[in-house]
């Protein structure tokens, strides 16, 4: 079947199987491998993308459900090479270790700040509760998100 969707401001019209998952559509059909697969059952958040203004685990979404949707993946966050403040803050706070959780974390954080530019630490923790990280112990990630929020004030 055929679907139309916008990914990172680019329109795509693709012929797909009805059981194709959004994560596979992004990785294998569009070549955006920044979206990671950590568990494929919606528990780790590595495959997080923003779809119509909400974060979703793209391993739980069928590609057909994304028909007509507007999607932002990690590749669409920087603007012509200028990093988003959240990306910049992750760099500055060493919130990136192995990096495998990073795309999902960054998108969850951006989505939080899009809806709530002034989050409390509790709200930050809530926002990334669905994103697992095995490396950092989370502290540097929280600090990064906090500083991104402070800077954009």
């Amino acid at each position, binding site marked *: 079947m055929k679907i139309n969707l916008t990914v990172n401001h680019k329109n795509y019209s693709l012929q797909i199987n009805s059981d194709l998952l959004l994560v596979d559509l992004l990785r294998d059909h569009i070549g955006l491998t*920044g979206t990671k697969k950590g568990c494929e*059952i919606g528990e780790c958040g590595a495959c997080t993308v923003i779809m119509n203004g909400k974060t979703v685990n793209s391993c739980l979404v069928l590609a057909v459900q994304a028909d007509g949707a507007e999607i932002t993946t990690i590749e669409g966050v920087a603007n012509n090479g200028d990093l988003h403040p959240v990306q910049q803050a992750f760099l500055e706070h*060493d919130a990136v270790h192995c*990096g495998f959780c990073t795309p999902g974390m*960054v998108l969850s954080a951006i989505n939080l700040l899009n809806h709530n530019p002034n989050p409390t630490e509790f709200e930050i923790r809530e926002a990334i509760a669905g994103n697992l990280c095995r*490396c950092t112990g989370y502290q540097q990630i929280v600090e990064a998100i906090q500083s991104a929020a402070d800077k954009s004030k």
Partner: protein
Amino acid sequence: MTPKIPHESARKHVTGEAVYVDDMLVNNQLLIGKVVYSPHAHAKIKSFHLDVARNLPGVYAVIRYQDIPGENQMGPVVHDELCLAKDEVNCIGQAVFLIAAESEEICREAEKLIKIEYKPSEAILSIEQAIAKNNLMGPERKIETGDVDKALKKCKHKISGSLTTGAQEHWYLETQAAVCIPGEDNEMKVYSSTQHPSETQAIVAGVLGINRNDVVVEMRRMGGAFGGKETQANHVAAWSALLAKATGQPVKIRLFRDDDQIMTGKRHPYLINYKAGFDNKGKLIAVEFELNANGGMATDLSFAILERAMFHVDNAYYIPNLRVIGRVWKTNQPSNTAFRGFGGPQGMAAIETIVDRIARQLKMDAAEIRRRNFYGINDRNLTHYDQKVENNHLKMMFDRILHSSEYLKRRQDINEFNSKNEFKKKGMSLTPVKFGISFTTSFLNQAGALVNIYQDGTVLVNHGGTEMGQGLHTKIQQIAAAELGISFEKIKLTATDTSKVPNTSATAASSGTDLNGMAVKNAIDKLKSRMIPFIVDHFNEKGEIIKSQIRAIHFINDCIIDSENPARKIDFAKAVNMCYIKQVPLSATGFYRTPDIYFNREKGKGKPFHYYVFGMAVSEVLLDTLTGYHKILRTDILHDVGDSLNPAIDMGQVQGGYIQGVGWCTTEECKWDEKGNLLNHSPDTYKIPSIQDIPEDFRCSLLEDVPNPSTIRKSKAVGEPPFMLAFSAWLAVKDAISAVADHQIEPEFSIPATNEVILLSLEKLRSIKKQ
């Protein structure tokens, strides 16, 4: 050294450009590989049919052990681990057949078409069962000092008991993955998410029956490893290589999370029996340990891990009479393997349990008992394996953290809180870490590097270490920049590659920077000493009376200068170009071996460690005694990294290590049913710490102004030691439980202290209290 340098790939990570094995662009011939594994812990393979699967359209190969062109073997040290099962399977998850097909779905369909008939037999599924069957993996080991039996007999106070510690799943975010691409003649190019490219190369060559110079293993980055990719990454690489060989096409295997959890080994569960004797003041006089490890179905690294456990049963404490016996038991479970700490956590959990019990028995503060038992500076400083504990910071760190954490005041507050609250209890604990750095198999302490300087003054560095998120490449980049006196943007690190630096050791034992950093420095020293005479000639060309001397030449600020005549200087890139024209070789290999370390296994004596790392933590928890639910209210950490090469990276390692340790000590529990099936093989049932599990108030600092005498730029290794800071949280939970009986009764406790364990322990305490 420039302090604030982000991880060398950080920009690529935040933009999604960083490429992992699963992200690689391979030509459109790429096939997907799948492993058909045993559903039985122990069984004979009676019959099987592969033809239907082989004939499925889209299937390119289905292979079994007879199709292996080389040796059917992938044991890293002892050759006791088959690549593919023959007529018997010895654990659930053991590989039996391999499939290569056009897609994941076709692989799955093909798997369904393979009919295998098994005849299950009795399986050994725990340490206790293995002990009952006397199923040892190899001879027991012993390390002993003093006269334990005599000393124990004389002790006024004695305790004995046993402690179990559980398995831990690595849960690297990126599961095991490899892509193999067949080349000309016999060649095989392997892209593997491995901590040990040289061993992956050896195993792939072995199963293919080709020479090691036919195999190139390349590793750019891993999405986490933690020891889980030290030996067991070899498996996926070997299987992909076999399929690539059989089909003549590139093959990728990336394990599904559940398969990864089912098939790969974990941190070794231990059953530890102990007896300890101490005096009125709580000073340890004699301790006897018996360590029993669940090795799983093959040796893997079990004995090296056991050895490190045996070296760490003292943790930070001087014990004049100590005997430790270690045994590895063979069971029908996947072979257990390396995991951050490498046995250290299991050994240290035992002595920390003993010290904690002494405090309760003598009704004294546990932190004080710890202080009294610390290794001394001038005396009481010899370990049970005869290594002297040098540059010991324990007492200094203890004083500092006691003060900075307001331990004594908070202890009072906690007592007061506990006296007022019946169902909520607080607990707190201070625990130290002393961790030995070096591979305990001494010859592994070697590393190589290759440094190329190009005519434009840029530098390419390759070394044997692998990047798994620990920031190794960033630190190496900094080291190279500092040694060459050029800005770090001029230096690029390449993927780890067995064709560039051969015969490397695993990136493990926290030693990545220590070893590879020194090897890189060695290569740079060679390059500098080649360049310097030409620089001196250049400075002396004008015939000045005062001549430039070799000893005065320094590499600094992107220049090379004569420090005695500072006006004489040349831009680094210009100097490089000049050297090129003068036919100076601008590429050099470097090598390093750790000096002065040795260990005699027969005698159990030696100096296995280059130095020790110290750390200390205080954790406070709040426990709901009705549900067993607890949270960490505050954690203070003071950790020793020598002169930090990169404080932000080191801090991240300390925090990440602590949290991973908290996971092992509390929520992470591997459960098996009576047939040996792992019950929690996915993240909805196996709980690694999430953001909700970290301390509400997390105060971490690095010990400053204590350079490490004999390491690269006076730094210390950082990967593993912080893991064991988590005992402070574990024993804080025990302290909160203990408060239910006013610290009068010893609670039952183990690792992991899950809610279930906590509730049982509470129930026991309450029933004893009633009697």
